[in-house]
């Protein structure tokens, strides 16, 4: 067993293909590490309690909430944030579909919506509008972009599959 006492510990993070080493208190969440320590502010804080989905990131390719994940927990795993989604300047099909369908207004829930949508399609939960609505329900949008988010996920799912 590896044991660390209080105060700070070194945490090695693999984020968007880059290695980072941070000296952190164990209580620092992945969300605060991204936003406050690494300047990766694309991942948003909406509630800090797992109630809104704005902080959705991928850990080992699966969508999770960064606000309820300790940074130390993801050492040894790969983390992808919204900043790492576009490859070589090419928008991910989900990003392009969000723009085309106007699937956002204020933009604050948008990174979480997009990360969630990418995973939703990958999981095979984008088979119908009803399924998309249910499997995207963990990402609140107060501007009310939901119908356009469904349209964007539907469109991107077809593109990703083809």
């Amino acid at each position: 067993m590896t044991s660390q006492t209080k105060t700070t510990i070194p945490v090695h993070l693999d984020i968007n293909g880059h290695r980072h080493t941070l000296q952190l208190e164990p209580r620092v969440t992945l969300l605060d590490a991204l936003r406050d320590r690494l300047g990766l502010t694309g991942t948003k804080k909406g509630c800090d309690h797992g109630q809104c989905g704005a902080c959705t990131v991928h850990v080992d390719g699966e969508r999770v909430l960064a606000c309820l994940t300790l940074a130390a927990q993801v050492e040894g795993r790969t983390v992808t944030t919204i900043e790492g989604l576009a490859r070589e300047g090419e928008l991910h099909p989900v990003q392009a579909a969000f723009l085309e369908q106007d699937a956002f207004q204020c933009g604050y829930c948008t990174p979480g919506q997009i990360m969630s949508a990418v995973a939703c399609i990958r999981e095979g939960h984008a088979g119908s509008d009803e399924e998309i609505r249910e499997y995207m329900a963990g990402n609140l949008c107060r501007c009310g972009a939901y119908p356009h988010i469904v349209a964007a996920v539907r469109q991107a799912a077809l593109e990703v599959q083809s």
Partner: protein
Amino acid sequence: MTVHNIRVGESKRGDASDGGADAVGGRLSRVDGPAKITGAAKYAVEQQLDGLAYAVLVESTIASGKVRSIDTSVAEAAPGVLKVLTPDIIISLRTASDWFGTPPPDAPYCPLARDVTFSGQHVAAVVAETFEQAVAAAALVEVSYYETPAIVDLSDAKAGDGIPIDAMTKEWGDAQAAFASAPVRICAAYNTPREYQAPMEPHGLIAHWEGDKLTVWEPSQWLDGMARTYAEWFDVPFENVRLVSPYIGGGFGSKALALSHGAVAASAAKMLGRPVRLVMTRPQTFTGYGGRAATRQTVTIGADRQGKIQSIVHRGINETSIDGMWVEPLGSVTSIMYATPNFSSKQNVVRVNSVVPGAMRAPGENPSAFGIESAIDELAYEVGIDPLEIRLRNYAEQDPEAKKAWSTRQLREAFAAGAERFGWAKRTPEPRSMRDGNQLIGWGVAAGTYPVRRAYGEAIVRILADGSVEVESSSIDMGQGTYTILAQTAAETVGVPADNVVVKLGDSRFPRAGVAGGSRLAGVMTGAVYKAATSALDQLVGLAISDPRSPFHALQANTLVVANGRISSPRGDGPDLSIAELLSSVGRDHIEATGDTMPANSTAQDRYKNYTTIAMAVPHTEGDYSRHSWCAHFIEVRVDEDFGTVRVSRVVSALDSGRLYNPKLAESQWKGGIIMGIGQALLEEGIVDRRHGRIVNNNLADYLVPTNADIPDIEVISVGIPDLHSSVLGGKGVGELAIVGVAPAIANAVFHATGKRVRDLPITLEKLI
């Protein structure tokens, strides 16, 4: 010299179909979209500053009383703590004027409370080196109180009848007598609970002092208004305060004013000599500022047997706080939606121990419509007339209150278009007459309206050496699409592709703008940018014609055409140059023009007042016309007959917002308003523990807003026509309109489905079970 005539869309729908996506009226995708979908958009509190310290608020746990003592010793000894602020340990501020600019009393202001008037009031704050340390230390601040009995809500026996607000009284004819003699009379009470804006981005800020200059990065619907408040609090010149708010993660009325948490953060920054970040926790957002006030209305309608209204008597009350004043104008729709020869509306406000309520999407109109649009549905059943037909029978051909012509009112068209698309004619009138297995199906209709609020704004338009165009304004974009429609306005006016326009917003150093509230900003700012861009274009063409170095000089033309970034003569003879080539030829590196929507002889003092207060807003009934947006909602609900759960399964709304500057974005805002209305109708309610006067569902798991799964496809239809009485380019308000009328349309549909009339929002399952 006229070089350009604005093309007002010929289309009956109000969406200019000419000019393609780049022009005003085109379906250009959001120009700020790429930044938002890649995570590159940095919101206010996401600025990375050296030496940033983190502040966390400590809130009162009683609703009424006094702070007896605050023990900060443990917190101060905690790791990383830099400062603990209390009412006794904070710099002295001055009281700021209110949003009307009313001169304040010459009294000090302390944003941390000694006298507690609501649970959740800020009483202390902890500043530490890291966020985690500040959070942990804030829990160690020990506050003790002298507690006194609180007035917890409108039903509290201590609340009383409240304070009459004479300015809300509207009367004509003899409403009481006409009601008494009417052959058909209905009377009912309608209640709405405390509701919360709940923008996804919590309120917060970074405050940073450099000498006596303050920079505040804060999500803001009104940079100049908030800068004024900070300047007055800290007694520094207005010019010394810079507000920066490049993106705003939703506001819905809640981010228009500088609030006490901002004063705390800016005080802490000054005391520490370091930049300080303070972000409210999600629970704090339910008490750190006010949501929509709880309201109660009684609506009585007297009518003849054909459903023709003879009298409306309306009484309303709304909550306000112990030491603040919020009036939610409950008679605002009641007085204008239907023609009636006799009318009376009065309103009281009642003081309770809560944070002062505030603006939330269509304040006034929203609860007002719930009353009158439910009541007329009740009248329709009473007289046995279709709910759509009774609305047409009582159609107001002019403003019944102001007795003025409507500038435009496409409400009849909205009813027609919505009804046709929805299939209203197939509705069976009897309640409980439509079902699908265990689900009772109901169809409801309701109308909505919102006044056209007009104010002022100014903008700079620059044509740069490379031929691109730059727009600057201190107005903001919280998702309404300001960046995009101003790019379209500048692009169309100057004659360049929208791609070649850069719009810079959200910095109070830019030319000023009034509040982004009351659905006024788009009309104001497109007007200002249109004027500035026209002026810049005039300069450009003037140079091209008159400068001896210009290739056009020899042409002796009266005017030139600028299109797609190129200049040529109207007849196509002579040179054809890019804007960059022309500027180069005449030796200019840019052209700059300022435009505004102010009266021509405005003084500097007028301008300051116009941009930093709401005192100068133009009444919507100014002059010969009454100006409003209008809409009609047709909604289908499915109510499970065993469980009482209501799900909205279909929405068709037809809306008149005049000319749409960008239909793609306007449709999104309309749908967003409808969705917030669905939440209001079915889910949203701040629940008070009446023993403690405290909201207990102060989080996003318990204060329920709709999820994606709660929302069906929504069809919106634009029936607007350009309304040049309302704005320079013909648009009316978009953002608030669509929520108005949604809740009554749903309540009416629930009645049709179940035969139960629910007059208390939200319509939760226990009310139908």
